[in-house]
């Protein structure tokens, strides 16, 4: 699994803890890494991902249908799942303020041993680390 993930574009380092099943992925300097590809690589290696958390920075953008989006690059963005923290960030939509947030990007549906890969990834913010 470590090799599978390590081969993905944008991955600099992979640390695997066999005891608690924790996998830490450090992106390369440019941060151009695709979490969906990591989920697929993990899935392909025969292991099931229970949760995926990310720490990312970017701008808050309104997608037009009341949904907020964290834009981490011109070609990459994550729709924010509505919660109290995302509502607070709503006032920053369309501004030049950069936020660094931590959040849950994927959680395996309960009751399933091995679930299919998700078709879309929504970010549920658990912590706002920085606004600048």
């Amino acid at each position, binding site marked *: *699994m470590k090799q599978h993930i390590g081969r993905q574009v944008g991955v600099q380092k992979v640390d695997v803890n066999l005891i608690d099943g924790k*996998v830490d992925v450090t992106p390369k300097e440019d941060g151009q890494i695709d979490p969906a590809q990591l989920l697929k690589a993990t899935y392909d290696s025969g292991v*099931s991902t229970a*949760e*995926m958390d*990310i720490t990312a920075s970017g701008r808050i953008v309104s997608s037009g249908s009341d949904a907020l989006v964290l834009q981490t690059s011109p070609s990459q963005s994550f729709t924010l799942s509505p919660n109290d923290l995302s509502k607070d960030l709503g006032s920053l939509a369309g501004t030049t303020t950069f936020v660094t947030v931590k959040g849950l990007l994927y959680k395996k549906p309960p009751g399933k041993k091995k679930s299919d890969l998700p078709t879309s990834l929504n970010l549920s913010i658990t912590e706002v680390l920085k606004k600048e």
Partner: protein
Amino acid sequence: MNIRRLALLGLFSAMLMGPTANAQIKHIEMRVEGMT
């Protein structure tokens, strides 16, 4: 004159590109099951 224009262009580019360079995924943590 050209140097001044170039300097201004560089300054505006840095203002626009600087924040974009900061936008990125900084860390990913997964919890996996079924690992041997």
